[in-house]
């Protein structure tokens, strides 16, 4: 663990729109520099995607971006991030992805020239390695097209590079379904961290070579999976909350390798990363209800530097196309935040306080995102001697905070979950804080047909 102390250690410095290490983009957005920008994300309805259909895909994607930017101009937006999250085929055959990046970047440049509208493309290639069964995290032939899309896509105009990497998923899915926190921590603090270091080493290399911004990763595939399952009452919310904390170190590892932020939107480890490292972060909350429901609609905004809708299909709503409607919603959300920033620290903190208090006592998953709790938990994490220890400390602290808040009657309790709090506690307090021992403990309980340990250097 590189970080031994927090970059932000006081609650009233952990705020939306500002980060100790802001990131400046080519067209002049200063992310974390005193302004929150919308990050619009979209996907397409069922459509054939092959190299042959590129001529149809290009105008389609250009159309979405130009409609969206047009609306941004109409609303006097001060700038937006447009995320391109390719569909599988577009990474599998990087030529498709590259051409789409180029086409969309042309639109961005056009709006910059004509209207002075500052926009920037975030390029997030897919992690294809899961298609090997079991996945070959280090030796997969899929790494090649992924890296090709990163490099050629960066050169074609992908100014911010990100990925939602999937290292550890062979174990985490089952761990979530069984609510096995030990196995889950193993998947994150051992497998996840190892995989991220390898992968982000490469991505940061490409960013340096192409002069682009190595944004960051997200534990979407882990903690959001848990969140969605908890939302459907498939697993306890308290498990999802602790699982969220358990993902922090894996995403942190990308920053240790050189990622500078803004991290990827679809995870909620961002506030912890910001406290620990000072990078600007992208977050999503209520206005991502098009992509998934969540218990953190407002509190997610508390420390956001980019405010995202995660993903919406390009379908027609009564008002027009969905990405345009969502851009408008994001823009209005950020207008309030930016107005509060302009009005000075008092108002800034007050608005944050509204975001926080309005959500945090409804659900443990929201509660742990309150800046105060983020700082407390992060401070525990950086005390860790290694990633496992750090994770364990974070999880224990999180559980303690939750338990106390429930006891004090502040945080809503769900009776069905009480026994789960107890069993989580038991598990956490009976777990080794050392990688080697944890591996030894967990290995016999996992299905060796599903995972190749050497692909994690184990």
């Amino acid at each position: 663990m590189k970080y031994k102390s927090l970059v932000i250690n006081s609650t009233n410095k952990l705020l939306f729109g500002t980060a100790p290490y802001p990131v400046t983009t080519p067209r002049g957005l200063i992310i974390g520099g005193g302004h929150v920008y919308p990050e619009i994300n979209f996907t397409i309805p069922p459509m054939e995607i092959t190299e042959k259909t590129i001529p149809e895909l290009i105008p389609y994607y250009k159309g979405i971006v130009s409609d969206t930017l047009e609306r941004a101009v109409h609303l006097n937006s001060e700038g937006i991030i447009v995320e391109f999250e390719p569909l599988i085929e577009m990474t599998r055959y990087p030529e498709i992805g590259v051409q789409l990046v180029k086409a969309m970047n042309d639109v961005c440049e056009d709006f910059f020239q004509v209207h002075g509208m500052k926009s920037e493309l975030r390029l997030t290639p897919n992690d294809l390695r899961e298609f090997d069964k079991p996945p070959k995290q280090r030796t997969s032939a899929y790494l090649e097209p992924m890296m090709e899309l990163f490099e050629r896509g960066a050169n074609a105009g992908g100014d911010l590079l990100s990925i939602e990497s999937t290292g550890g998923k062979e174990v985490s899915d089952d761990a979530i379904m069984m609510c096995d926190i030990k196995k889950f921590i193993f998947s994150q603090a051992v497998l996840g961290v190892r995989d991220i270091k390898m992968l982000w080493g490469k991505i940061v290399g490409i960013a340096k070579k192409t002069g682009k911004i190595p944004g960051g990763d997200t534990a979407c595939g882990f903690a959001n999976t848990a969140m969605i399952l908890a939302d459907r009452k498939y697993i306890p919310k308290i498990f999802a909350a602790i699982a969220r904390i358990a993902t922090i170190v894996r995403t942190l590892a990308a920053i240790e390798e050189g990622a500078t932020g803004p991290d990827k939107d679809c995870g909620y480890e961002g506030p912890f990363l910001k406290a620990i490292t000072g990078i600007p972060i992208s977050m999503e909350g209520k206005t991502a209800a098009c992509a998934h429901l969540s218990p953190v609609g407002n509190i997610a905004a508390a420390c956001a530097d980019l405010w995202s809708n995660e993903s919406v299909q390009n379908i027609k709503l009564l008002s027009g196309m969905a990405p345009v409607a969502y851009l408008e919603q994001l823009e209005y959300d950020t207008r309030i935040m930016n107005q509060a920033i302009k009005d000075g620290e008092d108002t800034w903190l007050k608005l944050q306080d509204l975001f926080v208090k309005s959500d945090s006592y409804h659900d443990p998953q929201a509660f742990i995102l309150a800046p105060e709790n983020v700082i407390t938990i992060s401070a525990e994490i950086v005390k860790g001697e290694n990633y496992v220890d750090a994770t364990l400390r974070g999880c224990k602290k999180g559980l303690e905070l939750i338990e106390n808040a429930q006891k004090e009657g502040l945080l809503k309790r769900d009776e069905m979950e009480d026994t789960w709090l107890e069993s989580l506690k038991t598990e956490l307090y009976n777990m080794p804080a050392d990688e080697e021992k944890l591996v030894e403990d967990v290995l016999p309980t996992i299905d060796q047909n599903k995972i190749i340990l050497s692909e994690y250097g184990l």
Partner: protein
Amino acid sequence: MEGLLEKIAYCVEFGKINKNAPYPPDMKDQDGADELTKQAIDQGINADEILKKGLVTGMEKVGIKFRENKVFVPQVLMSAKAMSTAMEHLKPFFQSGDVKRKGTFIIGTVAGDLHDIGKNLVAMMIEGNGWEVIDLGTDVKSEKFIETLRSYTGSYIGLSALLTTTMVNMEKIVKDIKSEKPDIKILIGGAPVNEEFREKIGADFYSPDPQGAVEYLNKLIA
């Protein structure tokens, strides 16, 4: 005798696999589904009764609690484990034909798609309801389904897709299977799928949840 089957059902319902299993804590050191099923067979209780009045009944109960959000998935998974452990003892009776499952259900996530949590839940609930389930995993192409159908004639198919892009593959798979075996019933599901899409691609049934699929399958064989 009644008592024993009820106990088996109870063990399945509460996920008591065997004597050694630590879960659930309040049944520590008691016999589990494993031991009790063996006892039942030893007592000469009809295997079909053990299956239906014991195991399936237990799973049904936990299934209802699950639908009503009274238990979480891990609890259902424990029940499923208890059931499958107990089933080991019934294997010879299946082989001899003394006991039959309700039918065979072949399920997979369609080509290009790796999401399997939803599919796994569906598989589990259908299996728990007394069906044989063949899980082909994720990223499954038409050929694989058709090939499997050849070995399990008269079975039913379930397709899952979570990506809008792989919905196209779902359509293709439905067409391929139907052109090979027009009478096969195909069930589809997954977040982006809906009734309209089902109609469009000519699948036979759509359900937003596992319960719907179980009910539909049971109706088909009723």
